């Protein structure tokens, strides 16, 4: 069965840790990291990368456009 796998890349230094992306993720993949970036913000990261479908919802709501989204079909 073909399955969709996704992944995001967060521009960590540009992330302001607002957390708006977290509730927007239908798979609960994205979360704020306990570490901080150079500006002291808890940046977004994939806490649960296996579940990402690359729907780009997080990127849609990100006010700073720090999220890049990739998606591919996988045959299992």
């Amino acid at each position, binding site marked *: 069965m073909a399955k969709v*796998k*996704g*992944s995001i*890349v967060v*521009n960590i230094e*540009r992330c*302001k*840790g*607002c*957390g*708006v992306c*977290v*509730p*927007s993720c239908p798979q609960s993949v994205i979360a704020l990291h306990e570490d901080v970036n150079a500006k002291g*913000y808890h940046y977004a990261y*994939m806490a649960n*990368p296996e579940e990402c479908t*690359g*729907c*780009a*919802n997080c*990127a*849609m*709501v*990100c*006010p*700073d*456009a*720090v*999220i*890049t*989204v*990739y*998606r*591919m079909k*996988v*045959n*299992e």
Partner: protein
Amino acid sequence: MAEKITTNDIVKEENLVFRKTPLFIDKPLSYCPGCGHGVAHRLVLETIEEMGIQSETIGVAPVGCSVLAYEFMDIDMQQAAHGRAPALATAIKRLHPEKFVFTYQGDGDLAAIGTAETIHACNRGENITIIFINNGIYGMTGGQMAPTTLPGMKSSTSPYGRDIKTMGNPLKITELVAQLPGTYYVTRQAVHTPGAVRKAKKAIRMAFENQKLNKGVSFVEIVSNCNSGWKMEPVQANEWMVENMFPFFPLGDIKVPAEQK
């Protein structure tokens, strides 16, 4: 079962589905974390990118938080005096009718000091696009009460909540300009959820496409948050906006041209 797919297998150029539009100048946005301005900027720039009109677009930046919009948008821009963006856009459009001209204004700019310019530009039916970000407050100067502040809403100049007996009623300027014959397309959108962002982008696209028709002003209001001014966390501010702002400023198209319904 196939081999385990790792992130490195997925993160490849051919699998790209979303990236920051190159029309953003590569510098950090000056907005607070969670501010809707960033999304609104992105939607305007993505629309310009998709229409392929980067070199034919002239934007007018307002006074307010988005005063530095020209620092982030890789298009031709002008900076207007406070509230005068529609007047400046009128001049630009009349001198360069082939260009796409838009103003990007906040509620303190468009609905307070710029009310006269806004209403008259809309009434004259200038062939421009107005993007209006409404967060119900003067964000840049420290969260003072704006004409769009809701009844009972606390701000730094109405610490006990806006009392309409002494402070007057909030202004629904979008409904107001929809009454004018010069407006062609008037809509109210938001950018707090992925679905709302997609709808807002469609509206902005339509507002830019309408300039080809030369039929009048296209006016897109975006109800946004101001978590710093409202003294809330960004996610909490979005929830507050849904509960309190949307009943007063309902989302949806207010005036749609008959031929586009």
